[in-house]
């Protein structure tokens, strides 16, 4: 055994290292939040409330303009993707958890395996694959809808669903699995069928489902890589007609990326404003999910 003095010195050195690591973990986060709030707020208030409605000003001019098209694009993408993706993931989770017959159990097991694989997939790969799929299908879709392009709101929605559905599925399924067997049996013993039972159990799991929804919402809002070749991005408002689904749209995250890398001072400022709005949205959803979980 080493002398006590040596052990104490070693202990103190390690303690210093641990504190440094702790400080180095928190410092960048604080700097990021501080910079985004400071830079973003000053831009937002320079053109308030126009920042939420205008299109970006000409690059290099002294005006900033706004990020209206990107805000609208994000709202359209996320609303559609949530409307389609939520029922699919929750129903799939219900089916997996309540499967009885052997083919049902196998289907559930396969869904579980594949979606769990999908959770940690790089989202750029998903985006690229959706783009590849859409270009392959484009000639056939064009026969029905002449204006269709692979870079479109529709592709963006599909990519977002693929990115976030596995998460929601996994969370709801874990929740359903964690319900004690006697509760499930009690519901069945009242003579409820599987459909009614699933409904009752989902209501029992209300807070898990709400938390899953708000986390998926946050993931969709913050997704960038999957939208590069699907929604593609646009700095102008899309015309609101029947072809809306088949045209490229902007999104807040794509705005941060392209405007931030553009090198024009006023566009970089818009990029900070978009970052600030994204940060606030994530903060709101984060707070909401905490409240929902605590409200259980």
């Amino acid at each position, binding site marked *: 055994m080493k002398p006590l003095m040596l*052990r104490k010195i070693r*202990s103190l050195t390690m*303690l210093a290292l*641990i*504190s*440094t*690591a702790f400080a180095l*973990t*928190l410092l*960048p*986060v604080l*700097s*990021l939040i501080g910079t985004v709030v400071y830079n973003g707020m000053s831009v937002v208030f320079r053109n308030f409330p126009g920042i939420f409605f205008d299109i970006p000003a000409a690059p290099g001019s002294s005006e900033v303009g706004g990020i209206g098209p990107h805000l609208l694009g994000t709202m359209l993408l996320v609303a559609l993707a949530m409307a389609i993706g939520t*029922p*699919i*993931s929750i*129903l*799939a989770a219900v*089916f997996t958890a309540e499967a009885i017959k052997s083919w049902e159990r196998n*289907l559930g097991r396969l869904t579980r395996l*594949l*979606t*769990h694989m*999908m959770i*940690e*997939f*790089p*989202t*750029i*790969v*998903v985006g*690229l*694959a959706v783009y*590849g*799929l859409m270009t392959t299908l484009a000639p056939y879709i064009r026969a029905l809808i002449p204006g269709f392009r692979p870079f479109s709101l529709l592709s963006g929605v599909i990519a977002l669903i*693929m990115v976030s559905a596995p998460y929601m*599925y996994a969370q709801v399924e874990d929740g359903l699995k964690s319900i004690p067997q006697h509760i499930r049996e009690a519901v069945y013993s009242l003579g409820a*069928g*599987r*459909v009614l039972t*699933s409904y009752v159990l989902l209501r029992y799991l209300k807070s898990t489902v709400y938390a899953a929804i708000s986390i998926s919402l*946050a993931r969709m809002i*913050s*997704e*960038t*890589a999957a939208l*590069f*070749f699907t929604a593609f991005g646009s700095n102008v408002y899309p015309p609101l007609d029947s072809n809306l689904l088949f045209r490229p749209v902007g999104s807040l*995250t794509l705005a*941060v*990326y392209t405007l*931030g*890398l553009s090198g024009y001072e006023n566009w*970089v400022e818009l990029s900070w404003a978009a*970052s600030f709005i994204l*940060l606030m949205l*994530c*903060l709101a*959803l*984060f707070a909401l999910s905490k409240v929902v979980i605590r409200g259980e």
Partner: protein
Amino acid sequence: MRIRRFLDVFTIVSLANSILILSVVLVSLVLVVESLPIIARDGLLPLVTSIWNPVKEEYGFLFALGGSLVTASLALVFSLALSIGSAVMYAEFLPRRFRVIVKNLMDLAASIPSVVYGLWGLKVLSPVLRTYIMEPLSELGLSQFVGRPTPAGTSIFTASILLAIMVTPLASAIIRERLLAIPSHIREALYSLGLTKVEVITLELKYIKRSILTATAVSYGRAVGETAAVAMVVGNVINLEFFKVFKPGYTISSLIADQYPNAEAYYFMKHALFYSALVMFFVSLAINIVLLKFGERV
């Protein structure tokens, strides 16, 4: 009658499962089919050569593959140090009333969009790293090993630091939760042996090595796949010496993001990019299998 028993109302729900399964299968299928033309032409050659010459239709993305592995590995080293350190600090030293603040801050950090990290990395982190770390080190004579930084400060090194900052909150949360879950009788037994605080912590870390492995694998997967933030700070320059980390370079994901707009102009370029995505798909699959076999559920 038999058919009715087989198909109750609940069966319709299986449609949702089929959609999920179909989407995963389609993603894999499209990646394979779209990369077949270049696999048929060049085989595994693009993986081991570093040429990017669309005019001559020659594609080898070793520089991007190397860039990805170097950034992710460096990021992993930094983030392991940071996440173990901060998790230990949280679980062993931090007073209870600070815990709520720190925990919420870290959880929030994990949910901030990566592209926001990218903008911060480009405008704040890159200049700081260039002035205080990269330039002094290359002045010291390391420049023949690590290269010289560019004026903007974007480099493979910057990307790995940014990645480390981005994955640390999640990795730290995994280790922290497990550290807090160590039964108190084990901790008390260790202290009763007369060990110092740090010796106890070392043993505790050995006790939870499975969680540390999980955190490692999850971080590595995130770091390899991350696109938006990396594409903003890695420099996007074809750099054949990807191991000289202070120089700007490419990773596979930033190569796809940056080069794809040009891809339609050349026949094989699109397929080459799909091929590189397929490689990333397999890397991610391998990490998933490791997680499934040795890791624990996050």
